[in-house]
């Protein structure tokens, strides 16, 4: 047997190996794609119920003597009237055979804790309702919502079910009467956090994220651009500059939680800045995103062809004028793309903000960069920890909102890159 035959004999085996290798490559990339699909469908599937809101339609009698107010009462009196009682009576009117205290309490928990405030606001807006009987849609409790949405299985034996038979009977009666309806959950986007899943919203977290990112952008963009310009255009070759570069590359790989420790020790404890405030979060996040933006800006500046600089210098511009009048505008699209990507990174960052106390339960919607607030990813973290079933869908919905913002930011970055990118 000569060599050619040997080679020919081995060929089949070698080609098989080739095919196996290629399949392995395909399988690994397919795994990544499959995982992403599972993750997204899982989260979207869990999130969808959160966007509908379950209401109970009740006929409430807003009698003036029972509330102790009339259309001429002062706003404070209207505000402090006992609306809870009105709702309770409306519920009792529907199920008059409920008499035991314990059963009554169960019955009252059909509507949300927020129902009385809902009624109060309705009365304040429409004082003419006083003395009449109105049909009003009240927010249902999250257990009721769970039954209606099918999260709580009605066919389970009573001992395993969160909602007991009696309550289930009430809910089914209400459903049969057409008094339960679902609407789009606007409240999710217009209210702050709450202990009651049906009332919790993400407006506070969105605004907190907005203020935090505002501070981050205001600090990191100018500093990063200045640093990148210096390192690319002015820096001499010496040890100090090398040290700066090593530091930047290393900071890009330092775990984010370490930045949180820095924020806690330096800004909160040493400078006694307020805890939980977007301003501190913004400073910490800007220190964290600086390396990303600096590295992106440097490569954008580096990509500007030397001929542009030489032309400017040749016409008598100074180095500074060359950089600020010609190089920087040419590099700006690349710098902006890098900045947006850095901001998207900062938007999704959680760990360092936990360290500086942005993890608190905050109901109020922040109005400025010094108000205590939380941010979207931390809202996700907080809700994910809550035991109530209703928060599971809220968590997934908050994740969807977070991913929506991230995708939007990245899309803008890609658009900018496509639109303004120049091939020199």
């Amino acid at each position: 047997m000569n060599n050619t035959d040997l080679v020919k004999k081995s060929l089949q085996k070698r080609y098989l190996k080739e095919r196996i290798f290629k399949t392995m490559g395909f399988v690994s990339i397919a795994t990544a794609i499959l995982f992403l699909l599972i993750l997204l469908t899982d989260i979207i599937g869990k999130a969808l119920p959160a966007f509908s809101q379950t209401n109970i339609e009740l006929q409430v009698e807003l009698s003036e003597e029972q509330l102790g107010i009339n259309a001429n009462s002062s706003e404070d009196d209207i505000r402090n009237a006992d609306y809870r009682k009105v709702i309770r009576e409306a519920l009792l009117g529907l199920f008059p055979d409920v008499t035991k205290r314990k059963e009554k309490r169960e019955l009252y928990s059909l509507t949300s804790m927020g129902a009385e405030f809902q009624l109060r606001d309705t009365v304040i807006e429409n004082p003419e309702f006083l003395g009449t009987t109105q049909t009003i849609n009240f927010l249902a409790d999250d257990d009721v919502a769970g039954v209606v949405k099918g999260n709580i299985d009605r066919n389970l034996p009573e001992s395993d079910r969160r909602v007991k038979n009696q309550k289930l009977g009430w809910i089914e009666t209400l459903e049969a009467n057409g008094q339960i309806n679902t609407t789009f959950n606007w409240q999710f986007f217009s209210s702050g956090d709450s202990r009651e899943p049906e009332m919790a919203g993400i407006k506070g977290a969105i605004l907190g994220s907005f203020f935090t990112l505002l501070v981050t952008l205001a600090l990191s963009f100018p500093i990063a651009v200045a640093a990148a310009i210096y390192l690319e255009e002015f820096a001499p070759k010496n040890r100090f500059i090398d040290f700066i570069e090593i530091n930047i590359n290393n900071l890009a790989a330092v775990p984010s939680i370490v930045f949180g420790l820095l924020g806690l020790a330096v800004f909160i404890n040493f400078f006694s800045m307020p805890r939980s405030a977007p301003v501190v979060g913004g400073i910490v996040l800007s220190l964290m995103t600086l390396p990303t933006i600096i590295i992106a800006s440097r490569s954008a500046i580096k990509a500007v062809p030397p001929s542009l600089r030489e032309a400017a210098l040749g016409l008598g511009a100074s180095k500074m004028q060359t950089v600020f009048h010609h190089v920087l505008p040419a590099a700006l699209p690349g710098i902006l793309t890098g900045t947006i990507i850095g901001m998207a990174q900062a938007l999704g960052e959680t760990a360092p903000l936990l360290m500086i106390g942005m993890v608190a339960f905050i109901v109020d919607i922040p109005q400025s960069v010094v108000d205590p607030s939380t941010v979207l990813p931390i809202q996700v973290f907080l809700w994910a920890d809550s035991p109530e079933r209703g928060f599971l869908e809220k968590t997934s919905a908050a994740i969807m909102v977070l991913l929506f913002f991230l995708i939007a930011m990245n899309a803008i970055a890609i658009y900018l890159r496509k639109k303004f990118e120049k091939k020199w």
Partner: protein
Amino acid sequence: MKISALIFLVLLFAAFSYFMARQKITTAYRQHKSKHKILTLPKYFGYVAALCSLLPALLVLLFLQIVEEPYINSEISTFISASNIEANQDLDLYLNEIKGADTPEKVAALSEEKQMVYQRYHEIEQTTARTISVVVLAISILLAIWGLRKININTPARKVFEKIIEGILLLAASIAIMTTVGIVFSVLFESTRFFGEVPILSFMFGTEWSPQTAIRADQVGSSAAFGAVPLFVGTMLISFIALLVSVPLGLMSAIYLSEYASRSIRSVAKPVLEILAGIPTVVYGFFAALTVAPFIRGLGESMGLSVASESALAAGLVMGIMIIPFVSSLSDDVLSAVPQSLREGSLGLGATRSETIVKVLIPAALPGIVGGVLLAASRAIGETMIVVMAAGLAANLTVNPLEAVTTVTVQIVTLLTGDQEFDSAKTLAAFALGLMLFITTLILNVIALHVVRKYREQYE
């Protein structure tokens, strides 16, 4: 005077001196006969004059702002000790109560003694604020006048201005150094306090971790042991699982995408990897805790294994998926840096593609790949949210991936969130763990960056 008003006034003076200086130089230029000698635009004289008043004023303001609070605090404490008021609580709390009284009702609610302190505090605060305003405004005005008088046609205004700007740029570049120094000092300082209480050796080599300190002496299980070995082992275990998933998958994806994939597959796969890289870690954590962990638990139980509901396997697997894009993009970089001639030489000798990749490309790119793996390891060790949400809290010295373990980052988060008093060994321990984390990742990063750079130079 409010600080915003003060800054506004300072800016106003700077703007004023800008216009005055520009005016002065423009008139001087007009009177100057030989116009060809004019080298600098008048606006540069304006800039220099403005910066001359603006920069020192702002720096002084910043400095005074930083020292203001400690100064007021020390004044108040001298007042308290001088007037023999019994501050029978923590001084910080006492001061906070007084400072927190910002409405007349709250002031009225204070005790008589505290009202006295409150009065004094108010006086001191007002005088300090007034002093700061006066000093800053005086600096700003005097320097503006001095600058305006000094500046003339022969001032090298553009050069001076450009030097100042260059200085500012250098300052911006040095922020990276200041951040590193800040990190090192903040963790080192608190860690030395911790090691004053807990010997460093028992921290590094102790095998029992239970940071709860006893409130009452007779409590059970509150002995406060700070042996960090279980945390290190837990971190290693989860990181190892993550690398076991991400390195082969990431490397193979990179090879497939750069050597085999058709254009259409690449146009799907690249964005998918980018999206995977962009998903916040808290989302991965949620997914790991609520979907993957129960799934693995169910799978294990159906095979007759007992799996903890917060198993290391679930956290490690999801973390591995998270790192895939990172490994794949790093490997893609190093593989594409291998010269085309090596590839062509191997193919020309009759090797198949896979033989070329396994026997030529990977050995040639090995240093770069190793560097990438080290960076991935550093990512995995420092990753926080996935393990906080999906790994356990109790320290458990085991290498069984089906049991719950805890990690360094999880402990930092649990020790530092919620109520904390800053002097207890418990919170200081978090900084000691942070120091360990920083040192480990620093070493990994430095080696990795060095290896990658050396490798790049080899083929350039």
